[in-house]
């Protein structure tokens, strides 16, 4: 089985779907001839032709609006927004249009569209190349939001997203593109080559949306995470020796509540980790659900570890970035008898 990094796995998913379905097409800024600033669409235009993978003007609202029109026609567009930080000009089209077209037309029209976008920090990207906007999509009725953490998952989830008849926001943790970054920025970088989830089948396979994965079984505390934070949580468990169960949510809408509830009822403790700013982040939703469904099993108040409520600061990358130590500290807080 070939070994792929996250970029190659995503490229493979797109290639498989372009080959399989002539209604799939890709467009976005710099995705055509050049193959995307992160190389995710590398070679696809050459392989599948100009009209299957092409460049667009710098107009996120226009890209998404055009994709909505195409999807309503019956195609399955996959668009790239170059950085999730730039998705906001398209927010009106996503919230007021894509998310509601099935509902407001009572099913006459649907929008089977995927909006891919690199997101998250840890790359010294400053305020406009580091943000994690997942909560603003999870809040909207009618959008699905998917966040992979490994090459194997990324390919299977992206294929499911393309097959979905609903609009999907597909956020790619760009710090994971080349390796399973665990937040220890001062240690040598590891590549995907030695990670088991870098073994990715070349052909078609899919992973259903809305199924969390137990990355590490454990009995003392449940860690809920997604994206880069899955690897940070693993490092925190290694560093602390706490027998934590790590759940990679993989998608926040749809959300695998059943797996969350089963795990927290078992461990009696819960730590929620995300890169996005704390206040009204998706962690708040998770904490509320844990409280509602697991209250009588809880041994300690649920802890959230999240980005500080400040814009992403360039010079303070590693003070701001949620690293393993903050997760370790949170586990200690919930482990206090």
């Amino acid at each position, binding site marked *: 089985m070939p070994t792929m990094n996250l970029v190659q796995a995503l490229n493979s998913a797109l290639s498989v779907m372009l080959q399989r379905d002539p209604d799939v097409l890709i467009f976005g800024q710099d995705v055509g001839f050049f193959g995307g600033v992160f190389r995710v669409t590398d070679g696809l235009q050459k392989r599948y032709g100009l009209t299957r993978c092409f460049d667009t003007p710098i107009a996120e609202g226009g890209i998404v*609006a055009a994709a909505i*029109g195409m*999807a309503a*026609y019956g195609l399955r567009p996959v668009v790239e927004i170059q950085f999730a930080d730039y998705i906001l000009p398209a927010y009106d089209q996503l919230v007021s*249009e894509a998310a509601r077209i099935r509902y*407001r037309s009572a099913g006459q029209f649907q929008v089977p569209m995927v909006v891919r976008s690199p997101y998250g920090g840890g790359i010294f990207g400053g305020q406009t190349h580091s943000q994690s906007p997942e909560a603003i999509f999870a809040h909207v009725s009618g959008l699905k939001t998917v966040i992979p953490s490994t090459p194997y998952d990324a390919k299977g989830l992206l294929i499911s997203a393309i097959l979905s008849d609903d609009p999907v926001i597909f956020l790619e943790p760009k710090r994971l593109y080349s390796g399973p970054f665990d937040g220890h920025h001062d240690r040598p970088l590891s590549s995907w080559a030695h990670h088991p989830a870098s073994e990715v089948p070349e052909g078609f396979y899919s992973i259903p949306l809305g199924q969390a994965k137990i990355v590490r079984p454990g009995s003392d505390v449940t860690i809920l995470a997604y994206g880069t934070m899955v690897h940070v949580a693993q490092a925190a468990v290694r560093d602390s020796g706490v027998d934590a169960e790590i759940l990679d949510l993989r998608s926040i809408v749809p959300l695998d509540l059943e797996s969350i509830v089963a795990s927290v009822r078992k461990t009696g403790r819960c730590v929620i980790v995300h890169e996005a700013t704390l206040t009204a982040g998706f962690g708040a939703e998770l904490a509320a659900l844990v409280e509602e469904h697991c209250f009588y099993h809880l041994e300690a108040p649920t802890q959230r570890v999240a980005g500080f409520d400040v814009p992403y600061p360039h010079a303070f990358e590693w003070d701001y970035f949620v690293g393993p130590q903050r997760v370790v500290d949170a586990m200690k807080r919930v482990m206090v008898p």
Partner: protein
Amino acid sequence: MSNIPPYSPLQLHVPEPSRRPGEEADFQDGTLNEAGAVRRPDPVSAPADMRDLAFSLIRVLDDNGSAVGPWNPSLHNETLLRGLRAMLLTRAFDDRMYRAQRQGKTSFYMKCTGEEAIACAQAMALDPKDMCFTTYRQQGILITRGYPLVAMMNQIYSNEQDTLKGRQLPVLYSARDYGYFTLSGNVGTQYCQAVGWAMASAYRHDTRLASTWIGDGSTAVGDFHHALTFAAVYRAPVILNIVNNQWAISSFQGIAGGDATTFAARGIGYGLPSLRVDGNDFLAVYAATQWAVSRARSNLGATVIELYTYRAAGHSTSDDPTKYRAAEGKSGWPLGDPIDRLQRHLQASGALTQKQFEQLSAEVTEEVRAAGAASEAIGTLGKSRPTVESMFDDVFAEPDWRLAQQRKEIGV
């Protein structure tokens, strides 16, 4: 040597209309030329060779009701009578539904009085399978295409037969089988979606076009710029209509930048052919649309059409135009009423007698009355509604657990 006087303190300019309530309406407009005066380039001509068309006004019907000049589409009487009937039916429908709102039978309504020629003539010049991405003032498209009036009324009443299951504000129709895309209510958002739909049609080597409409006020929205950029870049088979009815609720067209140049001229900067058309002239609207259709179907891409008209009624049932604009506006509007003008043309040519016209008027009134009675028998707003459990349908293709749980919460 410069003629610029010495600098004085900077001053902010806020445009204002030339007349306000209590003043006599003023329709002095240098761009109103005689009917028949504007040239008609071959549709295959290069956009750069027809920029003058963005600054003149294509008109076919003159003041005597004669069809003159190169843009005369030379339609059969039968087609013209069909157009007249569609416009009359649209106006009768509007009148009834406006009254229904005033009688408390629904929450909201929007008329297109004075703008009927735009939707009706364009619907006839397009193929029925072409997809329309409209604003809320092109109800004439649905009516011209034969969408059942009862279905429109059921939507306006949000009653149990409403095909949109009571989810949308009145008049925000959706009718896929009639080539009518779901109306948003956010202005401008549909404009670039239409371009995407047209790109998809071209991608699939289909024959269908998209046509979309936006108001003069909404040309200020970013989506307008996105649409023209994408349409030009990808040579999309789409018609980009700007309905310049001169008023965006209470804001005159100068607030959208209409004082500086024409709205049609916006298209020139994108390299798109751009026509400026008398929107109250059924024949001119038909001919310009037909011209744009032939370009799009020949893979020559998009056309911008500014349809110059006047919003004779209020923006909606929620505003009173006498509060913000000169009251004599409607009667003083020099381009007249689209129905009167087509009627006069048909009568002048002998294709229609006064008696036949009265018969036609009575017929459409009766058609609307009968549809109204049928829809009201199902129920007006609040008297009848779709089942409440349907509120949870169609959020996703497959409902997720949250919606199942929330449905249980209200006991359905």
